[in-house]
């Protein structure tokens, strides 16, 4: 068995075109055991396409995917046995009952037991209900239950918290974190706080290309500042400990500090001395970072 390897999923150089429109271009992913990887990007960035490729739902025009060391396109059945997938639209049969549906999903993967998944996703009290009569939140949770019912090594969730209320979102995030501790999870979202709260690593996609890949904390170092009388960029970037300055969304300055420096105090002192009229200064949010990475090319 390959269970000793910590690399659960490896995708190399995925390319996908719909007609003449390039949906995904040269995307590579890696997922280790015990990790939650976030796929982030604006709508139409290629998140769902990427997920469909790594779950064997569409064949990429080029590129390779291996799950637990098994090539997805050479040995699809063995590879897919390690996989649980919640697509963007949960694949639910509206005319089936919740228990019957989960049992069917389990049997498709050669599993039998459904109680654990039902309990984890809070579906205990709706087992006899018809899926079509469930609320959007319950349908979404059933979609997640379907993806984890056979206890797969790799769980791929496409926007798992869409349609849920804040309490349910918290529960589902806790559940994803729990799965991520012993297995591997890839989730896509455009909710930035979701990424900040549960993902260990993030891949940011824009127009089908990977624009950032790595830890989130690494990008939290930079500072966002707003002034009433904004100075020139050169004036700020001249300050000691500052590597680079950019104008971010809303005319805010995005200040990249040099490694090991925290120029916040210096910035505040300069603003006071030179009368820039400091309005706000705070560690940059992921939002600012995201907006910068995914802005349209000028």
């Amino acid at each position, binding site marked *: 068995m390959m269970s000793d390897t910590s690399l659960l999923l490896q995708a190399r150089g995925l390319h996908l075109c719909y007609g003449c429109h390039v949906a995904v271009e040269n995307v590579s992913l890696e997922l280790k055991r015990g990790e939650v990887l976030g796929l982030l990007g604006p709508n139409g960035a290629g998140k769902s396409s990427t997920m469909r490729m790594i779950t064997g739902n569409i*064949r990429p025009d080029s590129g390779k995917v291996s799950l637990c060391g098994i090539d997805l396109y050479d040995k699809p*059945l063995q590879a897919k*046995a390690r996989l649980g997938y919640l*697509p963007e639209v949960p694949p639910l049969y509206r005319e*089936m009952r919740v228990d019957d549906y989960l049992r069917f*999903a389990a049997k*498709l993967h050669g599993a039998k037991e459904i109680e654990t998944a039902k309990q984890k996703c809070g579906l205990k009290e709706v087992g006899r209900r018809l899926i079509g009569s469930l609320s959007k939140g319950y349908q979404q949770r059933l979609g997640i239950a379907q993806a984890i019912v056979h206890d797969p090594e790799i769980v791929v969730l496409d926007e798992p918290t869409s349609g849920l209320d804040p309490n349910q979102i918290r529960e589902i995030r806790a559940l994803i974190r729990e799965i991520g501790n012993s297995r591997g999870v890839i989730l896509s979202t455009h909710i930035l706080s979701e990424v900040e709260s549960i993902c260990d690593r993030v891949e940011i996609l824009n127009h089908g290309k990977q624009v950032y890949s790595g830890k989130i904390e690494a990008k939290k170092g930079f500072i966002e500042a707003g002034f009433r009388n904004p100075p020139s960029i050169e004036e700020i970037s001249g300050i000691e400990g500052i590597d680079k300055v950019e104008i971010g969304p809303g005319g805010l300055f995005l200040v990249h500090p040099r490694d090991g420096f925290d120029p916040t105090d210096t910035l505040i002192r300069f603003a006071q001395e030179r009368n820039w009229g400091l309005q706000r200064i705070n560690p940059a949010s992921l939002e600012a970072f995201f907006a910068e990475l995914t802005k349209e090319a000028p």
Partner: protein
Amino acid sequence: MIGVIARKEIRTLFDSPLAWIILAIFQVILAWIFLARLDAFLGVQARLQQLLNPPGVTEWIAAPLFSAAMMIFLMIIPLFTMRLVAEEVRNQTLTLLISAPISSSTIVLGKFLGLMTFLFCAMLLVLLMPLTLLLGGKLDFGLLASNFLGLLLASASFSALGLYVSSLTRYPFLAAAGGVGALLGLWAISFGTGKAGNVFHLVSPSAHFDNFNQGLINTGDIAYFLLFTFLFLTLSIWRLDRLK
């Protein structure tokens, strides 16, 4: 694994009102034909006795009944097959099957066998009608078996074709219309083409079914229906592979 999918399809069929309504109409029409043939038979029975080699009750009643059942199957089977793939593509539930560790052939065969089980139940209901005649007479079981086999093979080939058409579109009604159109076309293709044995008779299911209907069991006819079924099941599997 084929059984898992087949069982799910059977449950879905029996859970849907459409299937019950179609089956009920099917049964009413056939019962009407059965009674009409029975009535006609009783009317001419005395005169038939005087013939040297009179047609039996099976030939007079059961054969037309099975012939009518084949025609009705030709029209209603596409209504059952239309959902098989098209609806799953439309509702995006096919993802569940494609992401599971099962092959396209398992999916196709599971769906096909599920529908065939359902149709087999409908065929048993057809068979029950002539069997009631045992209360008052004798039946030609050979002819009955040949008719039943013919209907079974014909419905298998109709189901395979319907399944394939269903995989070509995401609109179930388009799949039903396409399926009925294709089957009617194939059925009618042998009309007005002169003597049996030309190419149109070879490809038309009606000519092959007629032999079973008359009690002739030919390996050629069996092979025709089996090849027909095999061809469209294979095409469906390919098509499903392409959908990935």
